[in-house]
């Protein structure tokens, strides 16, 4: 029997239950606010994450190359405080990282993640009389799987196929289309040094980034070294770190320890990252604004419901209900509407997120993708918190105002 329930809850429940239309409008209002907040947050943060992921994945997290950041200091500079130097002739250095495997071993001792050596060189790939310039990167397939997504991007064949032919090459899908080569064809690779080899196409990769697909190819390190005309050459170490956000610090430490220029993905994408900060600001502003607007909607509906009950508040007070009890009735009522609204809003938001995730985006530069949606409990909790706070405030203030009146003020007005 209802009489057994605490008075406040049973009165609130009776109000909520018997005023179906109001209750429905209230719940609907809260649900729409919560639902759209959740959906927009999922979309905004999803696209943000997607953007960062693409940035992070397109390059090694840290790339250690055989370049130096600054030209070496001249002896005169070291000996004197001020020196003027004329007519320097650049000394031709032997390219490549010295003792790459020793450096890798020492880095592996402390870098959290994986390291793989590679050889970068430029070449012209010739097939069926067509010449196309391309980057030829020598990789170690066994180590490469740990530092890049290359192995997952192979469309025909596999990365391991590089071992299967004496001079094996994997072409980007766009590059293969340009030269007209297929798996099994033999292409002629001419390096900048003038060395020419004949290589068998053992696979095609497709990363989805046109720049890579149209101009990149992979061979074994040994093959690349032959092309470069220098045995033992390694001119880039690729590092994949466990925590992508620590890449900058790790790159700095590698640079200090080895003296070679080491570039983190953040540094390589500095311009994009500053754009990302602006996007972040926009995202939080938009999500915040939606939550604000939604909470105003919630406030409006619930405070209207409470205002309509002003007379009942006077009646209950005249009977001798303490002001606190009357206030609590309406706060509980708005909480009931708020909680129900939040639950429906969650479902609504989830369904809308799923709906948005179905939207396909077609772009000539990238593969067809879907709208990126991030399903995060934080969004749901945040939207719920804001909606519940708004409902409680919307119930509390009008009820407090009404309960603070002398009942006679309302009774006088009514009669």
């Amino acid at each position: 029997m209802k009489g057994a329930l605490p008075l406040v809850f049973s009165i609130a429940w009776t109000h909520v239950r018997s005023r179906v239309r109001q209750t429905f409008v209230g719940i609907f209002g809260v649900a729409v606010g919560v639902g759209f907040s959740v959906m927009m947050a999922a979309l905004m943060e999803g696209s943000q994450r997607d953007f960062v992921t693409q940035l992070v994945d397109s390059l090694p997290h840290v790339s250690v190359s055989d370049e130096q950041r600054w030209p070496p200091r001249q002896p005169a500079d070291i000996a004197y405080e001020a020196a003027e130097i004329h007519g320097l002739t650049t000394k031709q250095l032997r390219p490549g990282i010295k003792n790459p495997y020793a450096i890798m071993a020492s880095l592996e001792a402390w870098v959290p993640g994986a390291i793989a050596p590679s050889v970068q060189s430029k070449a012209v790939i010739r097939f069926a009389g067509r010449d196309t310039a391309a980057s030829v990167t020598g990789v170690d397939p066994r180590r490469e799987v740990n530092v890049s997504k290359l192995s997952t991007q192979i469309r025909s064949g596999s990365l391991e196929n590089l071992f299967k032919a004496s001079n094996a090459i994997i072409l980007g899908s766009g590059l293969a289309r340009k030269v007209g080569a297929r798996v099994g064809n033999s292409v002629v690779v001419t390096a900048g040094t003038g060395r020419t080899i004949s290589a068998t196409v053992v696979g095609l990769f497709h990363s989805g980034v046109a720049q890579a697909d149209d101009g990149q190819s992979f061979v074994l390190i040994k093959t690349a070294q032959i092309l470069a005309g220098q045995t033992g050459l390694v001119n880039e170490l690729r590092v994949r770190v466990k925590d992508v956000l620590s890449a900058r610090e790790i790159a700095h430490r590698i640079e200090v320890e080895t003296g070679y220029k080491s570039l983190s993905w953040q540094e390589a994408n500095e311009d994009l990252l500053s754009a990302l900060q602006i996007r972040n600001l926009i995202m939080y502003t938009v999500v915040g604004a939606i939550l604000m607007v939604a909470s105003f909607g919630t406030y409006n509906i619930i405070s209207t419901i409470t205002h309509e009950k002003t007379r009942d508040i006077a009646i209950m007070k005249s009977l001798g209900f303490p002001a606190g009890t009357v206030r609590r009735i309406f706060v509980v009522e708005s909480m009931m509407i708020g909680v129900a609204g939040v639950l429906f809003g969650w479902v609504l938001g989830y369904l809308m997120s799923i709906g948005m995730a179905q939207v396909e985006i077609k772009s000539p530069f990238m593969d067809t993708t879907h709208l990126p949606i991030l399903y995060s409990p934080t969004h749901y909790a945040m939207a719920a918190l804001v909606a519940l706070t708004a409902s409680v405030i919307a119930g509390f203030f009008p009820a407090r105002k009404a309960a603070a009146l002398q009942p006679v003020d309302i009774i006088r007005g009514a009669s």
Partner: protein
Amino acid sequence: MKPPLIESRKLTRILDGEVPATLVSEIDVSIAAGEFVAITGPSGSGKSSLLYLLGLLDIPTAGEVLIDGRATSKLSEEARAQLRLETLGFVFQFHFLLPEFSALENVMLPMRALGRLSAAQMQTRAKDILGSLGLADHAHKRPDQMSGGQRQRVAIARALANDPLVVLADEPTGNLDTASTAQVIGILRTMIAGEAGKAVVVVTHDTGLAAQADRRIHIVDGKVDQPPVVISDVTD
């Protein structure tokens, strides 16, 4: 000697505003147990205001209201509410029932607010009161499913819920037809004033209702006028 159930001393109420309006000015009345008192007077004379002050629904600007001998002007809002709940019952011109609740639930509200009886006892008592007012069959109807007279009787039943010392009624028959009016007057007379230690105060325009009262307090311009009883004696 037992104190009067309600007593007012120099009761004054002035409405604040750009032009302050005096509703009630220095009124001394006392309501004794067993009395059926009618407050009469022309519209705007302040008779309803006096009733609200006596019923602790309003706070006097000056003066004092004593309920069962206890001064109330210094009481907190909560204490006044509690005193209303325990000792006073109200009936207004409009029934002022809560529209979402059945007659039975409306009658039980003050009991539940007081919380002295068990749920089952409240049910029984509310049904008894409704039954004695001839509403046993309407206990589970909501106010909008009842006639005006029935609603007003439910309102009286609710006023009686916590067995109050005094029932204060503001134009209880103002919106009723003659049959219902007679019924309501009968109830107020017999059910309440008839019981030992209880009293009824009614504000009314209705001469028929006023004639039933033991005593009439005539209010003009916020002050107690000569009792009309005396005037009618003279004209006779």
